[in-house]
């Protein structure tokens, strides 16, 4: 079980990277491009709130999992 937990750490790191790409490249950048106020707010939220939060938490969690911080004591 601990081996699965550690291996899954790689998945959380990858998930963080994919989420970051999706939020910034697919969502935020096109919205910043329009210049409309109704687009700027969600673009700002994606860039400055959601992206750091999701990428940061998934990456940190992934690193912790890889290092065995969540291993069960047998």
């Amino acid at each position, binding site marked *: 079980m601990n081996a699965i*937990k550690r291996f*899954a750490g790689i998945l959380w790191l990858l998930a963080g990277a994919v989420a970051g790409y999706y939020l910034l490249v697919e969502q935020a950048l096109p919205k910043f491009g329009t210049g409309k*106020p109704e687009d700027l707010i*969600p673009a700002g939220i994606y860039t400055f*709130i959601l992206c750091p*939060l999701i990428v940061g938490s998934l990456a*940190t969690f992934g690193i912790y*999992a890889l290092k065995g911080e969540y291993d*069960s004591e047998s």
Partner: protein
Amino acid sequence: MSDLATMTPKTQKKQSLAAIIAASSVGTMIEWYDFYIFGSLATIIATKFFPAGNPTAAFLSTLPTFAAGFVVRPFGAIFFGRLGDLIGRKYTFMVTLLLMGGATFLIGLIPSYETIGFLAPTLVLLLRLLQGLALGGEYGGAATYVAEHSPADKRGFWTSWIQITATAGLFVSLIVIQLTQNSMSKESFAEWGWRVPFLVSILMVYVSVLIRKNMHESPLFAKAKAEGKTSTNPLKESFGNRYNFKFVLLALLGATMGQGVVWYTGQFYALSFLQKVMAIDLQQSNELMTYALMLGTPFFVLFGWLSDKIGRKGIMLAGMLIAIVSYRIIYEKMYQTTNVINKTEIVEKTTVDITRALDKKEGIETKDSLITITTKKEFTDGTKYEEKNISKVLADASAEPVKPEIKKTVIINDSDKWTLIWLVFIQVIFVTMVYGPIAAFLVEMFPTRIRYTSMSLPYHIGNGVFGGLLPTIATALVASAGKANDAAKEAGTALPNAAPYLEGLWYPIVIASICFVIGLLYINVKDRNTDD
């Protein structure tokens, strides 16, 4: 002999615990009430403080929703969580109550944009931020306070009463608004009556403060304080300490993130889907939502109680898993229930009415014309359908033509109404499964000395950020799927999305799936950090 004299110590303890739950729950419910009336009256607030056609005001109008719901709540959690771990739970959630009540009352007093100009929307924004800050501090305090009074084997049951307050607050806000509307003309309500629900809040807060004033500090915190075991720096211990921080992350990614999206899907996105995607009459959709929520509410307590018997993790993860696999089936069924394509039209009852009038801008007639084509249809099962196609004919022939606006309204029959109540009720059950035990689950993850701080942040990020953004992201996903289909139609290629109206569900499905896997793999029921 008086009743009091015949009471056994056990009965007295039970009664005082019930009083503690009642006092805590009423205050938390009032905070939710204050938070929701702003949302429920958003349309009127927009006309009073954020005039149409002014881009700066339009920009400001979106900020209260986003800022208070998503950005400020976690800050409130950190600020008041720290305070609660330093000076005590009782005083802290008294402050959050007063802050919320004061801000709500003051919103009801702000003069309109016409009277004081841009100061009006600026004040609304500031007070809304204070509301978000207060809400961020309240929940963790109430949950911690109740949990620290409860016996360990009944924490799930007693804290589940706190979990009801969010739904109860929504109910009370709708009732107060409805009563105010019924007591005056539409014009009076639009003119000044909308302020009443905000002003009434101060009375509710006053009563709640009186009740809370007589409550004692949480016994676990009082004991820790007496023994000198409280934290001197809760923020550092919660988030700077690697051992504790890994549990904060686990609480967020393995529990509150998925719980937040399941809650917002069942309680808020379902209503938005009924009104915006299925075009069901506003009154009917509000009514069926109310029925579903009322029927589902007791299940918060049921699942809270059950979590004491069989564990919290299993119930919450089961709620997430059933939601993940059934959302698309439920929403497809909802959509098809009222889809008029599936119904038999009574052709002789179809009417088409065409009117033409001069367009008005800010009450003044322009040279442009508005042509409104109203089509009304009736169906053999009693369903009624109305479509208004409003097109603008511009006086300036060289100007770029404006896209026609189409408004659809479906008035459903009783049978469809009960089918929809049932389908929303099922989603509310998922909500109660994930939300009923969450307070006890979070409380048990962290020790008394840093509990308020540590549990508040993952709760408000999970619910405020991941849950709160659900309507915006889901609506954007539906819109982009619709656009992709339109583009494919124009190009004469196959449609990329067979059911574009279901695309918004990918957001809660993906988030809840990640949360489910993390929760299943990493949450260990032995990882309890309670010191009681």
